[in-house]
């Protein structure tokens, strides 16, 4: 067994160990911390699997923002946890479920072990036409070229997802602001972090967006970083969250999806098919989508993290 394979086995075992902890821990908060660590290690696995694009998304979104969301929820729900334990299913039922889940794992493992050789792949087909799109990162090419319809639907589905979160507000709170901690001690470390980190973060976000055409990165990774910086400023109490009824905010939310749809429709007219790019214009159009989609995605992800609006108590300042 080579050193690299041993390292891979170690990494896989660590991930499984953390996953078991996440399921088995008695305290939810500890389980969520385990989940955050698990996300970090999964990002490393994606590097080992040769996809830095996915590793970036996993690190920023799967571990970073999801961790933030779940840690907040775990702290919020901690007082109710004692009651959960009484509702656990009995040992026989758990054994039965465990056996069934083991069977699912066994079937999947058998599938993994019997995958055809050589593996079917669309890689050469992607590589062949990549030059006509003008981008060098094949993942970006797939996201905005060959499978742009998936990306479009995903961008569109984020808007109803946000509306679903907002719809959990009570009637008086509708259109108000998400919960915020209010102003904080200006000397605290959190305030300093929220003042120093965002400029660097915005730079990194734009860098990731920009290199996305040729190297791992792109609008999703860039948008996640921008969203994280925004949420940091809000959590530190440096700014109040925006009122969700604001027109400019709502336009910003739908801007990305609208631009995508308009460019897609222009393809019908210019190139004869929805989401087709006319000869020679592919690169500028992809760039336009990437750049205009990023602020929308960032705002939507940030607002998803902030949750539904709450009733304003004091006078709005």
């Amino acid at each position: 067994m080579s050193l690299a394979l041993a390292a891979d086995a170690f990494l896989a075992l660590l991930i499984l160990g953390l996953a078991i902890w996440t399921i088995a821990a008695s305290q939810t908060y500890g389980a969520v911390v385990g989940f955050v660590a698990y996300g970090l290690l999964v990002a490393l696995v994606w590097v080992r699997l040769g996809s830095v694009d996915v590793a970036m998304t996993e690190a920023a979104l799967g571990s970073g923002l999801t961790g933030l969301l779940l840690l907040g929820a775990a702290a919020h729900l901690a007082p109710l946890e004692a009651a959960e334990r009484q509702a656990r299913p009995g040992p026989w039922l758990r054994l039965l479920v465990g056996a069934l889940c083991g069977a699912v794992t066994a079937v999947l493992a058998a599938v993994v072990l019997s995958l055809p050789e050589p593996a079917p792949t669309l890689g050469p087909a992607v590589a062949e036409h990549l030059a006509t799109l003008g981008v060098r990162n094949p993942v970006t090419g797939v996201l905005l070229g060959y499978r742009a319809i998936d990306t479009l639907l995903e961008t569109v589905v984020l808007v109803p997802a946000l509306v679903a979160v907002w719809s959990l507000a009570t009637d008086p709170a509708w259109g108000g602001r998400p919960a915020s901690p209010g102003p904080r001690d200006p000397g605290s470390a959190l305030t300093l972090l929220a003042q120093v980190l965002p400029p660097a973060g915005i730079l990194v976000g734009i860098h990731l967006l920009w290199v996305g055409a040729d190297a791992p990165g792109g609008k999703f990774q860039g948008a996640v970083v921008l969203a994280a910086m925004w949420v940091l400023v809000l959590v530190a109490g440096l700014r109040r969250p925006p009122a969700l009824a604001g027109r400019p905010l709502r336009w910003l939310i739908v801007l990305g999806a609208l631009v995508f749809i308009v460019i897609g429709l222009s393809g019908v007219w210019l190139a004869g098919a929805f989401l087709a790019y006319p000869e020679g214009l592919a690169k500028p159009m992809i760039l336009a989508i990437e750049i205009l989609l990023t602020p929308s995605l960032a705002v939507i992800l940030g607002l998803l993290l902030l949750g539904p609006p709450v009733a304003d108590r004091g006078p709005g300042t």
Partner: protein
Amino acid sequence: MTLALTLFTVISVSLGAIFFLAGTLGLLRFPDTLTRLHALTKADNLGLGLVVLGLLPQVAWPLGALKLIAVWLLALLAGATVGQLLGAAVPPEPGTPGDRATGAEGQTP
């Protein structure tokens, strides 16, 4: 010259790795949260710093090197903030009801 740079890399990276080892041992062995926090920030700042220092001669100048230094500066900022935030959130003295770490209640420096 190349040999000297290689040697520099080997020594610096090794030292950095040793700091990570020390930080981990501290995290596992120290008696209470605040001392563990102390061990952690050492590994964060010095371990990563030495690894970055050692890698500097091995990367393209100037962009790759700048990226490495940026990573270290960001980690320093994160480490300092985390130290402050967690330090303030931890109960002040060992011996509080939650402190049942190792059973060995050492003197905290």
